[in-house]
């Protein structure tokens, strides 16, 4: 309703005059840093990732170092998170399981991202019959509850880490396909895409240079949120005994084996549970923070709020 354009008077030929409004606009990174919740969640994630990477060296005990004499010890100076029914150190197992969980989450979400974005972008850009067919397939996949579909996939293949990754990846593919398609639909009618078409640019080049960069915002947010849900799904599958197979540690598997000792050894269930809780929450908060920054409407809101 005010000036729809940001034209600066006498800037027609004036070199080096950047529109002042734009200059005052914060960079996405600084904007992200201005939200304390986002900063904290990013820090927590950084710690989790570092611990996971360094787990084999940081872990004070071997993950399968059975020490029956010291079974079911409460947390102490030598065993920070206590020990389980076989005397294994819970702390060592939690941080090594973090490595497994993150690995599963990252690989499966990457799979979902690649396949989903490919389906979504092609479907949205090409349109027509292909779009209808692909989206109905996606709809069918959506109709299954997430865990049920994953269970079915694991049941068909052998349970194990690779299968878990594949199952979670397939389950999250339709979400990425939907997000990518919706964004592509709005970008493909932008004049800069039309201009590119009039130049005779091949479709694949248009998709790579114009469409993909301009739909990256929502995809980044979706990736962050999906990582959180992938961790939850992996924990759920392992809890049901269909994910990571014992004796390899996983948060879900540890929760399962802690079931029988809920009354005697609270530490066996609480620490893996807290690990899941903290990691998932951090991914979710980071995703929310990213969404605020990458969505232009929200962004103006934050900027005006922080200026006051």
């Amino acid at each position, binding site marked *: 309703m005010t*000036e729809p354009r940001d*034209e600066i008077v006498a*800037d027609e*030929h004036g070199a080096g005059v950047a*529109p002042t409004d734009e200059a005052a606009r914060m960079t996405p990174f600084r904007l992200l840093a201005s939200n304390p919740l986002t900063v904290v969640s990013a820090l927590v994630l950084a710690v989790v990732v570092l611990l996971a990477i360094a787990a084999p060296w940081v872990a004070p005990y071997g993950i399968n170092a059975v020490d029956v004499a010291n079974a079911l010890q409460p947390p102490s100076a030598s065993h920070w998170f206590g020990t389980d029914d076989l005397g294994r150190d819970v702390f060592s197992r939690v941080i090594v399981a973090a490595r497994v969980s993150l690995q599963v989450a990252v690989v499966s979400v990457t799979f979902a991202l690649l396949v989903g974005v490919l389906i979504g972008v092609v479907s949205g850009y090409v349109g027509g019959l292909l779009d209808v067919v692909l989206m109905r397939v996606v709809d069918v996949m959506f109709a299954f509850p997430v865990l049920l579909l994953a269970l079915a996939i694991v049941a068909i293949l052998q349970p194990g880490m690779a299968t878990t990754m594949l199952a979670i990846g397939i389950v999250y593919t339709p979400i990425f396909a939907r997000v990518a398609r919706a964004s592509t639909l709005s970008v493909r009618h*932008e*004049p800069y895409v039309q201009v590119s078409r*009039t130049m005779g640019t091949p479709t694949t080049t248009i998709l790579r240079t114009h469409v993909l960069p301009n739909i990256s915002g929502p995809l980044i947010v979706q990736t962050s949120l999906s990582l959180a849900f992938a961790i939850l799904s992996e924990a759920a599958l392992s809890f049901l005994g269909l994910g990571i197979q014992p004796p390899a540690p996983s948060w879900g598997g540890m929760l399962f084996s802690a079931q029988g000792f809920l009354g005697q050894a609270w530490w066996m269930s609480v620490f893996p549970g807290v690990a899941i809780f903290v990691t998932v929450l951090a991914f979710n908060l980071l995703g929310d923070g990213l969404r605020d920054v990458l969505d232009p409407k929200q962004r103006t809101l934050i900027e*005006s709020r922080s200026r006051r």
Partner: protein
Amino acid sequence: MSPVLSVENLRVAIGSREIVQGLSFAVEPEATLGIVGESGSGKSMTVLAATGLLDAPGARVTGSSVLTPEGAGPLELVGARRSALRRVHGDKIGFVFQDPTTSLNPLLTLERQITESLEAHRSLTRRAAASRALELLEAVGLPEPEQRLQSYPHQLSGGQRQRVMIAIALACDPALLVADEPTTALDVTTQAQIIELVRTLQRERGTAVVWISHDLGVIGQVADDVLVLQEGRPLEHRGVVELMDEPRHPYTRELLAARPRLGASTPPAATDDGEVLLSVRDLDVRFSVTSAAGRSIVHAVDGVSFDVRRGQTLGIVGESGSGKSTIANVLTGLVRPHGGSAELAGEDVLHRASHDLRRRIAMVFQDPFSSLDPRMRAGESIAEPLRVHRLPSDGRPRDERVAELLELVDLPAAFAQRYPHELSGGQRQRVSIARALALEPELVILDESTASLDVSIQARVLDLLRRLQSELSLTFVFIAHDLAIVQQMSHDVLVMQRGQTAEHAAAADLFADPQQDYTRRLLAAIPPDRPRRAVG
């Protein structure tokens, strides 16, 4: 007569930047104040601040703005309480904004939108408000007002929506009407109708009007007094006749020279012996539209034929929806035609156009804000066609060619590093032109390429295009809705109406002796040279 609105030393600052720097003006009943200036000169800010509508975060407004409506005491609007402002907005002050497509709520019927302020301010019953809404729609000249009351905004054309906006603004018989670029988004013919409408209503109701525009030609038709703004500073504030006859400030003179006028300048007469570059025969384009009522066929272009000679310009002119952009889209391969033929120097353009042929036709789009990829630097955008066609083939670095192209459109080479949001509208359009010229095309299609620019910037871009045409011997298809601009650019003119050729003639003949009523209507719609007050 005492002024309806009198503003003294109005200032608006955001942060340390003063956007409006000490403005004073007054508007009397039945008079119109025109505020003119380029985008970013603070026109809208001034009026919003003066009427207490300014809602920019961190904006500080100082000075005074007193509203004295008939039969009520004076009210200071700067710093007034929200409840006091609410009573005034819509009741004593009516607003019409630029974009008629977004100013109306798409989910409400026209009746609901018109009666809203009546029910709020006048406590009219539903029925009384509805009958008043009907009167208003009649007053703004909407056809079949009874049926229109129950229709939704999407069922109206742009001009009709702006009429509805005016009806809403006038619902409570305001003492002051604020019109912020109300005709900028409209065709020239619709613009003329809206100007006429506001004048008539103003005379009937004695409303004071503040009319904001970037076009002195429009202001000349509506205003009694004119305030010229540049970067928030008042440059001149005088009666419209004196201002346009003897502009004191050089900036005013520039704005005067920039307004589209008939006969301002014409390209050299066309020679008939030139080689025909583009030949279009019986072009026929149909779209099938699926609506709630079922499928229907829209005949967008119906049997249009024309030739364009090398080095010359064909102007295609018509109102929105006349099919002129569809022709551009067909020629660039964005739309498939139903029938007809088009040949570029003997080569078929419409069917299986080769990759190589795409090189020879370039297009510049209307909107400089969305025709550049926001994530690409200007240099990358210009280099894109080069990359697609693997040029330059002699192994020169692409950057060199980009710098050359930037120089061609009068931009410093450093602009290659800038993102579109760091450029002004005119600069962006120059980048678009550079991109179109990158492949050294033979034919450049300019689809309303200057329509969304301010008149002063438009004039400069038109100069650039003329210079490029003579330097590079380019052939243009120049699409516009404004005959005055088409006259400045074209050797031949094709006037289109509802997808058909209304008139096709050499520019000199067409402007000297238009054969069709439709062409005459388009010509009459251009704001004349002299301000209306001088004519009488």
